[in-house]
């Protein structure tokens, strides 16, 4: 089949045909919606010169040419590149600049294991063509998105610099092609919008995870936040003892069961940017009437990540008579895939917004009106969960996320 106008829909799980130009030849093959260009050429077309390292855009091993420009194959879904002109390292055998680079890499000992080399050559070729005036600093900047973990960069930089200076000596200027605005590989032609698809069934809710709550839990991160409400401390503290009502004020929180007054089982819907997940678990509740303070110690999981948290709250007199100040001391630990990322400041920011929503709902409820309709974020007995999620996320951007 060809890339003729047709609904461009790739069903979940199901495959559809992708047509593009690969190394100068038209190819058509099946791909799932989630299939990226690297998997498409490697698994489907058996071109294994494109290497996959980090799979989130940082290491550069998968860098290929899309519409003649370097792009991350791991961050380019095949379904978004219908009709694109794709060139992998296999397609650069006869490219004169790549030939010069190959010779220079050989001469300067610019590779050992070779894992980074395909991506390195694609990025180096772009530097040679686009920046004929580049010095060593500029070359190093230009290669910052291609990680090498064995050879070291000295030989690579020397190789690229030698090709650039040789071309400069021949008076060859920058060679850049005309291109339209917008992401490379994205073609408007050959596709029409699909009829509205039928709704896809949502994923089953993750099963509850039984997690023991250690008495000596030491959170990895902690922060304190507080808010005031215009009701007497005794009334506010009493409210905190009515768990169902507390949960109703927490956007995203649901209570499944309360096996005892001290134990609650439930879930927390967490939404942060593109991340939406539900943590399910249980929490143990403690209260001390004498000091108008209490604890919520919870743990939960979403099937991949786990979190445990301890919230200590105390209700004190507010700034003016008849008002209360609620001080929350939040500690949490996050484990699982999310835990490799962490940006505690972001957690505080998200928690701050949740607490503000919670406080507004609390005030409305104490005042006799219903809380605003539940939004998607949550703060809660399992507020920890939220923190966890945002924490991971944060580290992703900070350390891993290549984009801005």
């Amino acid at each position, binding site marked *: 089949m060809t890339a003729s106008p047709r609904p461009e829909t790739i069903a979940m799980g199901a495959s559809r045909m992708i047509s593009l130009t690969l190394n100068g030849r038209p190819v058509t093959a099946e791909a799932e919606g989630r299939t990226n260009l690297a998997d498409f050429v490697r698994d489907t077309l058996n071109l294994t010169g494109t290497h996959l390292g980090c799979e989130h855009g940082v290491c550069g091993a998968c860098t290929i040419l899309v519409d003649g420009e370097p792009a*991350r194959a791991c961050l380019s879904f095949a379904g978004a590149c219908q009709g694109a002109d794709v060139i992998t390292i296999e397609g650069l055998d006869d490219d004169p600049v790549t030939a010069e680079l190959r010779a220079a890499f050989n001469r300067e000992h610019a590779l050992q294991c070779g894992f980074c080399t395909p991506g390195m050559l694609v990025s180096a070729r772009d530097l040679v063509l686009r920046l004929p005036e580049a010095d060593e600093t500029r070359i190093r900047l230009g290669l910052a998105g291609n990680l090498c973990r064995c050879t070291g960069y000295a030989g690579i930089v020397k190789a690229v610099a030698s090709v650039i200076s040789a071309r400069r000596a021949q008076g060859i200027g920058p060679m850049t092609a005309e291109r339209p605005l917008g992401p*490379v590989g994205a073609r408007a032609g050959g596709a029409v919008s699909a009829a509205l698809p039928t709704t896809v069934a949502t994923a089953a809710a993750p099963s509850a995870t039984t997690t023991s709550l250690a008495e000596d839990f030491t959170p990895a991160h902690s922060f304190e936040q507080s808010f005031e409400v215009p009701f007497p401390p005794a009334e506010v503290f009493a409210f905190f003892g009515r768990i169902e009502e507390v949960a109703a004020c927490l956007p995203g929180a649901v209570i499944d069961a309360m096996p005892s007054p001290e134990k609650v089982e439930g879930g927390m819907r967490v939404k942060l940017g593109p991340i939406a997940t539900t943590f399910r678990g249980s929490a143990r509740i403690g209260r001390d009437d004498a000091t108008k303070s209490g604890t919520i110690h919870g743990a939960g999981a979403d099937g991949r990540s786990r979190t445990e948290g301890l919230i200590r709250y105390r209700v004190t007199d507010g700034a003016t008579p008849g008002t209360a100040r609620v001080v929350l001391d939040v500690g949490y630990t996050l484990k699982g895939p999310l835990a490799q990322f962490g940006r505690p400041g972001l957690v505080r920011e998200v928690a701050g917004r949740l607490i503000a929503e919670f406080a507004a709902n609390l005030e409305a409820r104490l005042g006799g009106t219903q809380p605003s309709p539940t939004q998607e974020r949550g703060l809660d007995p399992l507020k920890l969960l939220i923190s966890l999620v945002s924490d991971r996320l944060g580290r992703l951007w900070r350390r891993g996320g290549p984009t801005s």
Partner: protein
Amino acid sequence: MKPAPFRIERPRTIADAVALLASGGDGAKVMAGGQSLGPMLNLRLATPDLIVDLSGIDDLRTVREEAGHIIYGALVTHADVEDGRAPDVGTNILRRVASGIAYRAVRNRGTMGGSLSHADPAADWVNALSVLGAEVEIAGPAGARRLPMGAFLAGALATALEPGEILVGVQVPKVPATARFGYVKHCRKVGEFAHAIGAVLIDPATGTGRALMGAIDAPPLVLADAATLFGGRIDAGFAVRFDASAANAALVAAGLTDAVDRHVHVEVLRRAATQAASLFTDTRSAA
């Protein structure tokens, strides 16, 4: 890691994209170049059922120049700005910012609209366009609307976009020839997200200026009147009067409790001011 399965749709018009997005509800995510969402999909931090890929919509691959400002379509890439295919709002203003975003292979697909919609507090466009006073154009089920950056950015990774709404363009005011733009970001490694961003837009001819401290895990702190940072007035010698205590006080008021963090942000802002001042005399080369 591989993404969880999802369905991908490539509408050709903004209206179709809005309809698709609305139909997908909470399980639908919009994608432009995919350079922010892609990593989250691959790590399965984001597991949408439906991806509405905007990259086939011609109306978003545009730049409109009007009196006083330039309107960038949501699909204009960082590389489009870096290379000058999309005009700049002044001499080497956005171009300089664009060339410092991530890596070239990412800049070739990453878009202004996608970056703003992702709303990472440490992202370059989120900060640069805030200090430049940009506004975003939004299309949605209820029609079109426009928001200043400050109202658009609702929090870390959160925007004012309602369900079904799409950011379709960014309107950026042109920078007067008498003004200078300082933009400094602090990273441990080239291409990573910033740990601190400082920016100033200073115009001694009018005695006005704006300043920004960003990458504070929340939307950037924008000082609409930067004079307080420079002894109460803005003139040719503004930078040497940079008042670190005023900047620090603004951060304290914004809730930054860590003194070391504040120190870094204040210093990065000072460097941005110094950079802007140096641009009044230097001839700059393109990045």
